[in-house]
């Protein structure tokens, strides 16, 4: 018994060692995917991971990779757990990882200081630390297409355009962890300026599915608008509770992690009218998505349920892959190498330019607003559009709304300064 165990362990160690060797073959691009198909947020994690994986599989199948180099995409299961996140990071970084997409604010925060040391950039696409949008302070971190603060400012603009924000009370219901608390400084800064009042409704991770107290409080506070920073099982529960207290759905806006098909499907008809922010197109009408269906899904190489293809989170996972792929291409152009490094990738991300024309070439015309980043701007001034749930699917109801860059920018600068204030050794870059 014991002998077998020892043999097994030794064998496993050898195999583990061996598997590191294989990844370093010629002309490949290694992209790790820190996914979570288990754990409390698996519902969202599965969709994102599928979209992310399928796009690279499609590129490999259709174009033979990027610039002639095959993409090796490897998933590592984090279960949305910070400790497992470190393990995954360590397990993959040695294989020539180009970029990390942690998909968890907790893991992102852990990786931010590591990125400059290991010289592997982080792309926290629409999550993570808002301040990381400041490229001068955070040379290695990117938040394309927008930071949480930018998103919140877009949402405020939407509210302002639909009945005005002045004198209104905005209820902010959020998952009571780092992620949910991110926009609070912005709300507190903008509230007095724009003349609105905020009521906060935190939802503990444990109470994600028992929110009746929060919604009773909503009933008591009677906010004019509700904005939600939720995730996972919290979203559907919140919308259900809102329906229960008969909160008007068209005054209830979820951020881009609280406006997916998986969130609204359980709610169904009673969620009709609920509004969500989004930055990635919905549906399968885009040629790129069609290619994915053709080359990957129909070929049986996808883990995704065909019904989920084109869904909000699937497409977002794909969009993440698009950004990575475009940045790789940019890096290849800049360096002239087929096989690039993490440092090259950073250059690619800093010269990232997803124009409307390029979107068209990619088969994603109208999928998202153009994004252009540079050395100083790591969020690309991304716009969000609003979508509304019609009881069974999402309809886009607004054009892309640009963030209030003037308002958000200084706040981001302050936050970035605060982040490095107690880190004397922090490496910044100068962008002039």
């Amino acid at each position, binding site marked *: 018994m*014991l002998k077998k165990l020892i043999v*097994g*362990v030794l*064998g*496993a*160690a*050898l*195999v*583990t*060692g*061996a*598997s*590191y060797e294989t990844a370093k073959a010629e002309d490949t691009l290694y992209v790790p995917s820190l996914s979570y*198909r*288990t754990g409390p947020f698996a519902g969202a994690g599965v969709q994102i991971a599928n979209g992310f994986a399928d796009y690279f599989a499609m590129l490999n199948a259709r174009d033979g990779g990027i610039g002639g180099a095959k993409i090796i995409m490897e*998933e*590592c*299961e984090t*279960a*949305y*757990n*910070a*400790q497992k996140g*470190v*393990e995954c*990071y*360590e*397990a993959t*970084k*040695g294989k020539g990882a180009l970029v990390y997409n942690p998909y968890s*604010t*907790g893991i992102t*925060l*852990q990786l*931010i*200081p*590591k990125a*400059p*040391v290991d010289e592997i950039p982080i792309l926290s696409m629409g999550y993570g*630390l*808002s*301040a990381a949008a400041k490229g001068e302070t955070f040379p290695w971190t990117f938040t394309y297409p927008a930071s949480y603060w930018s998103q919140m400012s877009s949402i405020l603009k939407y509210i302002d355009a639909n009945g005005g924000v002045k004198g209104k009370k905005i209820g902010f219901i959020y998952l*009571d*962890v*780092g992620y949910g*608390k*991110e926009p*609070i*400084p912005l709300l507190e800064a903008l509230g007095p300026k724009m003349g609105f009042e905020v009521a906060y409704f*935190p939802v*503990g*991770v*444990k109470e994600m599915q028992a929110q009746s107290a929060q919604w009773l409080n909503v009933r008591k506070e009677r906010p004019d608008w509700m904005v939600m920073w939720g995730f996972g099982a919290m979203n559907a529960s919140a919308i259900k509770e809102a329906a229960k207290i008969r909160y008007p759905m068209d005054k209830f806006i979820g951020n881009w992690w609280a406006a997916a098909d998986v969130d609204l499907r359980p709610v169904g008809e009673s969620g009709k009218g609920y509004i969500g922010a989004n930055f990635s197109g919905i549906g399968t009408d885009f040629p790129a998505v069609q290619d994915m269906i053709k080359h990957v899904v129909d070929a049986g190489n996808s883990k995704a349920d065909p019904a989920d293809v084109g869904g909000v989170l699937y497409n977002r996972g794909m969009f993440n892959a698009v950004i990575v792929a475009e940045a790789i291409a940019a890096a290849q152009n800049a360096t002239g190498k087929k096989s690039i490094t993490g440092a090259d990738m950073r250059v690619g991300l800093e010269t990232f330019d997803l124009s409307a024309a390029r979107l068209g070439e990619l088969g994603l015309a109208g999928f998202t607003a153009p994004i252009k980043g540079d050395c100083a701007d790591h969020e690309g001034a991304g716009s969000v559009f609003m979508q509304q749930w019609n009881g069974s699917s999402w309809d886009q109801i607004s054009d892309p709304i640009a963030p209030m860059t003037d308002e958000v920018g200084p706040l981001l600068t302050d*936050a970035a300064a*605060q*982040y490095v204030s*107690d*880190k*004397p*050794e922090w490496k910044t870059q100068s962008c002039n």
Partner: protein
Amino acid sequence: MFYREAGQYNTTYEQDLQAFPIKQDKIGIAIWLVLAYLFVPFFGIPGLEYGFAMNAIMIPVLIFTITTIGLNILVGFTGQISLGTGAFMGVGAYACYKLTSYFPDTNIIILILASGFVSAIVGALFGLPSLRIKGFYLVVATLAAQFFLEWCFIRVGWLYNYNPSGAIEVPQREVLGWIVTGASAEPMTRYLVVLSILVFLAIIAGNLTRGRIGRSWMMIRDMDIAAELIGVRPLTAKLSAFAVSSYFIGVSGALMVFMWLGAAEVESFDVNHSFLYLFMVILGGLGSITGSFMGAAFIWTFPIILKELGKSWFGINATVMENVSLVAIGVMIVVILIAEPHGMARLWQIVKQKLRIWPFPH
């Protein structure tokens, strides 16, 4: 054959009271120490990439060993079940974070060791109910600690310096010119620091458990009423167990964030982690310091090994293996409890017994 104590006699009580009275054990420990101090820091684990071996295996395993020893003092030696381990680690981590911001120039290792005292106080405070209640009721009390503390970590902004991200981020600190915390710290440095703290604490744990105080804990565990009638003060015994246990756990929490994770929010201290540490104690062996090493190493590396095995041998994806390892650990807990409640430590002893008489069957 290899493990015989024949011919070794202890002629004084001092000799008999040593931690490892048998010569082979002394040699064994020496080999382990040489490996840990001279081999691993330079070569990592053979067959594994160095950074991975250090950051994903060695450092966390050492840190969790401290946690496990701490929890074992409470559960294994004193018989008081706690499901608040995760939160007590959090107390250590947040305490250390606050200390670093108040004393930026103090040696970080001293701060880490000092932060344990904060969690020791908090632990003793939440241990107070154990004087009146025991068994499952105490489980509920420790859950109260767990959830209340978790709430504090979120709600009390002072704890994370009102950081907008709500997380604690580790500053870079140097000791004698070596960077020991922060992302720039070399894995080797961090490993050696953690290892030394572990060795130091393990010796203390070993000493305590073999002496008067350890006996008073075990008396409470084995038969609290008899212990009281023989003259153990339940107050002192239980609270000292809670305090010492929480000290270890707090130090390990500080180490976890400062030497390993680099940044942490409340998720790293939630109740699921409390279960994980309890599993380490049970599988390793209740009431065994050696077992704590085994339990921590096993529970931490098992899913990693399983994941690799699944991927490279059977082509099974990580998701399935994640669930398989959940089930497997669950099954192992049940099996160990049925077959050998003293866990892997006891199995190891049996192996040693067998070695002692090898090659003869009896």
